[in-house]
């Protein structure tokens, strides 16, 4: 995938494993200099507030390392449950599938490079 990392989670993670994923993934981003991370969760049927927090952490931490993260393939039942749980996952980008996730990653990465990402109008002209 070139500059990107693809993480496919195929089981419901229990807490210690989720924390291991978080630290392993951040280390990997740092070591490889990856610019994008795709977390594929179509095999995950349980996302509770702990897992939601992990996804949020991964998004924030990778951003600090100049990488963008997109979570893809969320099961509809999981999405509905997260909303009812009150977990909005702010700062976590999502996409329907890997293909769209890649497109979103490329878009976000080029936007950070040109400074268009969430830019405030900066009028520097004299």
């Amino acid at each position, binding site marked *: 995938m070139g500059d990107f990392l693809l993480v496919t989670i195929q089981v419901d993670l229990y807490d210690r494993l989720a924390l291991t994923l978080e630290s392993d993934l951040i280390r990997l981003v740092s070591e490889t200099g990856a610019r994008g991370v795709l977390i594929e969760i179509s095999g995950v049927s349980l996302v*509770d507030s702990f897992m939601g927090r992990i996804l949020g952490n991964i998004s924030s931490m990778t951003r600090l390392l100049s990488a963008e993260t997109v979570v893809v393939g969320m099961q509809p039942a999981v999405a509905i449950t997260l909303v009812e749980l009150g977990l909005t996952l702010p700062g976590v980008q999502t996409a329907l599938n890997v293909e769209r996730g890649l497109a979103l990653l490329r878009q976000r990465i080029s936007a950070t490079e040109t400074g268009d990402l969430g830019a405030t109008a900066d009028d520097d002209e004299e």
Partner: protein
Amino acid sequence: MTTKSSERAEVRTEPDVIAFRGHLRELAFRIEMTTLEQTKFITAASELVRNMLVHGGGGEVTLEEVTNGARVGIRLTFRDEGPGIADITQAMQDGFSTAGSLGLGLPGAKRLANEFDLKSTPGRGTTVTIISWKNGR
């Protein structure tokens, strides 16, 4: 309300949680909950069992298949002998956490389940009961 089956599980460690979740899936499957109902039910239970471990020092969960007329559901009772909750109203607010977490566990579980009850005595422990009905009623 009639109890059709009942089992108890001690949950004190991570392996206990994993076994517990497996039990929940079996029960949900047995009463033929939909995927969505099962997801909500197990997510609510996951929040409550984590609370029990993190705050209560572990405890016991009773899993019961219950019926009420035509309704079929699962009742879970989470019992711990931990420090208890000092201010229940505060604990039921979204975002309130004494453990640096997101604070969604209790109010979230209440939203995801069909019935919710919480009793707590500071210094003695906490008991949380939820019922998830098949077909949501």
